[in-house]
């Protein structure tokens, strides 16, 4: 009974370390262009760190099953008659519950507060979705169909509406998403952190993320982040031009 | 014991099969409750407790009373069969079916009036047509069941020791009644 703890424990530790090393060194995450993106990415990293030991434990047991517990001589004899162990079950329950509670609090509520909390904003941009295009309406009434221009370092509230079916407003580089629901106005907030355009990163685009019909895949719109000054000139020109 | 006696032990065992049937029916009824629950919650979700002025309250109350009364006659039909009184069984079943028919006529009038005042294209109308329609469908299936047991009962299929068919249909009928007891206040009172 006792002797399996040691190899499985070693395997567990080494798998955990390996996985955490991988998480720390090989990021799978795309570039961040907003404060919200940073919150989301930190949450994602934290979850990866927490998930590593859980995965490692199961993997360690699986590995040792093959190496240590295989019925090598094909004796087909029965194993030990262990029905359970109250202490282990209780301990497991407590640890997994704590883990779950922690995850709810830390990336959960903390992230939620940072992404969806605080209903204040410097600018409001309204997006109208319809099959299969977005139209952008700025606070001064100017509208655009070809791109979304966003000021950097300013908190923007996006009001999202739909004229026909469900769509979803998603800017992957900002990590924000909210559905466009016919009959409702939904809101999302984002603060862009640096200037750039879709030429720098494909994720600087609005992508419709709710299946809305044949044109769903191509219901996208480029996003350009500019300085707040440029933004104001842009919308003024837009208004004058339109 | 051979295989065959074992099989018949299960399926003709007079104690076993009614018990399983009864349990099955209760599960079925519970399952139906969830169906009605889905539609009832849809009504509150779409229209809150809004209710138009034009509802025909008197007619609704009248058919509610008729339907509730039909539950009593259905019960009497079952009790008659339990005492082997075939004639009274036939009488009470017919009365139940008759009341169900009256109920359905009332419902038809209501639906007609509804199309004038709150047609299906409005939120309340949608909820109204859906709930009334769903319930009417259950009333009709219940009536078909009652017809079948009436027919079988007249041909002498049931007796005081063997009337599961009657019991099942009557229990279902009580359920149809109960569903109305929830739908009526949902549509007319709240």
């Amino acid at each position, binding site marked *: 009974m006792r002797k*399996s703890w040691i190899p499985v424990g070693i395997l567990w530790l080494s798998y955990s370390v390996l996985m955490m090393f991988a998480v720390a060194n090989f990021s799978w995450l795309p570039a961040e262009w907003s404060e919200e993106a940073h919150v989301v990415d930190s*949450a*994602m990293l934290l979850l990866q760190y927490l998930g590593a030991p859980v995965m490692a434990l*199961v993997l360690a*047991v*699986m590995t040792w099953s093959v190496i240590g517990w295989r*019925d090598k001589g094909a*004796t*087909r*004899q*029965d*194993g030990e008659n*262990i*029905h359970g*162990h109250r202490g282990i079950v209780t301990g*497991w*329950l407590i640890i*997994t519950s704590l883990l779950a509670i922690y*995850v709810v609090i830390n*990336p959960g509520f903390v*992230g*939620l507060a940072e*992404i969806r909390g605080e209903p204040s904003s410097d600018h409001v941009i309204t997006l109208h979705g319809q099959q299969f295009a977005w139209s952008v309406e700025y606070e001064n009434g100017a509208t655009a169909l070809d791109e979304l221009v966003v000021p950097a370092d300013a908190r923007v509230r996006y009001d*999202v509406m739909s004229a*026909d*079916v*469900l769509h*979803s407003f998603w800017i*992957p*580089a900002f990590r*924000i*998403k*909210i559905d466009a629901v*016919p*009959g*409702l106005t939904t809101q999302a907030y984002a603060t862009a952190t640096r200037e750039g355009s879709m030429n720098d990163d494909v*994720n600087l*685009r609005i992508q419709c*993320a709710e*299946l*809305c*019909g044949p044109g*769903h*895949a*191509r219901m996208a719109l480029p996003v350009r982040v500019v300085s707040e000054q440029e933004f104001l000139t842009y919308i003024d020109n837009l208004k004058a031009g339109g | 014991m051979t*295989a*065959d006696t*074992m*099989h018949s032990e299960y399926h003709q065992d007079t104690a076993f099969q009614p018990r399983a049937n009864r349990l099955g029916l209760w599960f079925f009824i519970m399952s139906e409750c969830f*169906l009605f629950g*889905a539609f009832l*919650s*849809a009504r509150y979700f*779409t229209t809150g407790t809004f209710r138009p002025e034009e509802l025909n309250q008197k007619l609704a109350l009248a058919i509610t009373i008729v339907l509730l009364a039909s539950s009593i006659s259905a019960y009497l039909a079952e009790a008659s069969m339990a005492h082997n009184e075939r004639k009274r069984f036939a009488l009470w079943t017919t009365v139940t079916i008759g009341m169900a028919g009256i109920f359905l006529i009332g419902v038809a009038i209501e639906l007609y009036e509804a199309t004038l005042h709150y047609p*299906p294209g409005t*939120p309340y109308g*949608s909820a109204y*047509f*859906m709930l009334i329609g769903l319930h009417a469908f259950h009333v009709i299936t219940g009536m078909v069941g009652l017809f079948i047991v009436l027919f*079988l009962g007249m041909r002498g299929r049931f007796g005081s020791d063997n009337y599961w068919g009657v019991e099942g249909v009557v229990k279902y009928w009580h359920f149809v009644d109960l569903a109305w007891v929830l739908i009526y206040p949902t549509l007319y009172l709240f």
Partner: protein
Amino acid sequence: MKYVARGLVLAVTGYLSGVALTVIINGNGATDELAVIAGYVLALIGWLAGVGGIEAFGRQWIGKTPKVSESQGWKRYFEFSIDHKVIGIQYGVTLISVLLIGGLSAMIMRIELASPGMGVVDLDDFNKIVSMHGILMVAVAVAGVIGAFGNYVIPIQIGAADMAFPRLNALAYWLLPPVAVGLLGAPFLGAFNAGWTSYAPLSVTNDSGQILFNLAIITFGLVSILGALNILVTVITMRAPGMTWGRLPIFTWAGFATSLLAFTVTQFFAAALVLVTMDRVAGTAFFSPDVGTGLLYEHIFWFYSHPAVYIMVLPGFGVILELVTTFARKPLFAYKAVVAALLSIVGLSVVVWAHHMFTSGMADFLHGPFMILTEAISIPTGIIFLSIIGTLWQGRLWFRTPLIVAFGWLFNFLIGGITGIFLADVATDIHLHDTYFVVAHFHYTIVGGAIFALLAATFYWFPKITGRMYNETAGRIFGIWVTLAFNATFIPLFWAGMNGMNRRVGDYPAAFEGANKFASVSALILGASFLLFVGNLLYSAIRGPKAGPNPWNARTLEWLVESPPSQHNFHSQPRIVGHPYDYGVEGSIHAHFPDEEPHAEEQREEVTV
């Protein structure tokens, strides 16, 4: 075959007369949706009457004694047989065929997605194929293990001769072919392109194929509900003497828990689709953009469809636990805790549905509670994992194909579960929702959890069902192949999702090409593995060596009777005298047959070695 032919004739007649009737009354065309509904309903009734409903039920309603198929041999699989073993096989073969059709559609999708731009299909057809793939596969996952093995194994495991309602059982099965025909026939009416979720209002305004989707899925709901009800009543009333709740084999417990869930929530999918149907044909306005409330559909739908994912995976838990104890030669670790976990999953799974709606625009205050409850569900699921680990611990593992597939399951479901935690956290889900990360998550849980369990169960019970052994080498190769290929297919899709590729798109930015190409090639390799699977089973069912009653030295009742079991399963009523998983206890016995027949005696000796 005679009955199936009669069913087909009556179904076609029913369909035509339904359509004709509506056309005459309404004066609209034959593809008018009302006509399709009337046709479908009459076709369904005609089909059921034709395949044996007349004899099994109709005769009784006119006062005659009912009749059911009593044929033996191949014929009974095409008839209204009430033998739960025949019905189990009928489910199994039907659903594995559907799995292959669904898999074939996945292959088309992966070929299209191998590079950006449009190749083999256009954008709309792509969405239609995704929707078809999704719903066919969901049907397989919901009914696969429980329909095939639940029917076949549960009555034997509890020591019963059949289900509590054998005729109802047959009726439920015969409702299944119309579901498949309805879904696969939808392209004739323009198919459905709203995904398996069929969110309104898109599902109100799209092509008429949607109406067939709705009807088929409502029928499928009926299959689920009737099947679940039957299992519940069977387990409650038909356990053999001595089969207390504490001695119930774990697969039976899992089937019981699944059924509890299925018969209470399935109505909601039907209800949601009834509302959509009414909006389409009856002029109601539940989902119209100006009056309706867009979120109504999502709430009702997920109230079913979240629990549905547990309907898919709970029988899988049962299968894997059963396998692990058998092949580790050890008692199930923490049996009572596992049962408690199964039941608490049932309870919790009906209160977490809105975690699919974190970005739907529902009120923000709902995020918190649904996040908490969703995370809570990972705790009982963790107990299942603990039990598997504890059972493997210090076991004497016998690595036959079922255990190899079970190990694949363990790895896959672990990844699926942990990525579920990423989705359950609102902060991360806001980014990940409706991306390929979700696609990868649910393939890891559904394919990894439900389909792998189906595969493992197929290998495990194959010798019992056919009486013959599958080819072990081919089985092992398949087990390893399918696990590796599956992981190679879906790991890159996690990356694609995180990096900004959304789901249900036939075209995508060139930046995601690498991952997709890799996934597509792996998917084809994955698809090919199924040829080995099907080939092995077909060949072995006819040519395989005789397996004997108990090739695994297992202890539950189904292994104590001959393979395949006789018509009424047992030659004498078994009495249960001990726990089913007392491996390693000298002289312990699970069941005892008062009328011992010679072959039953032999087995008991083998078991207690």
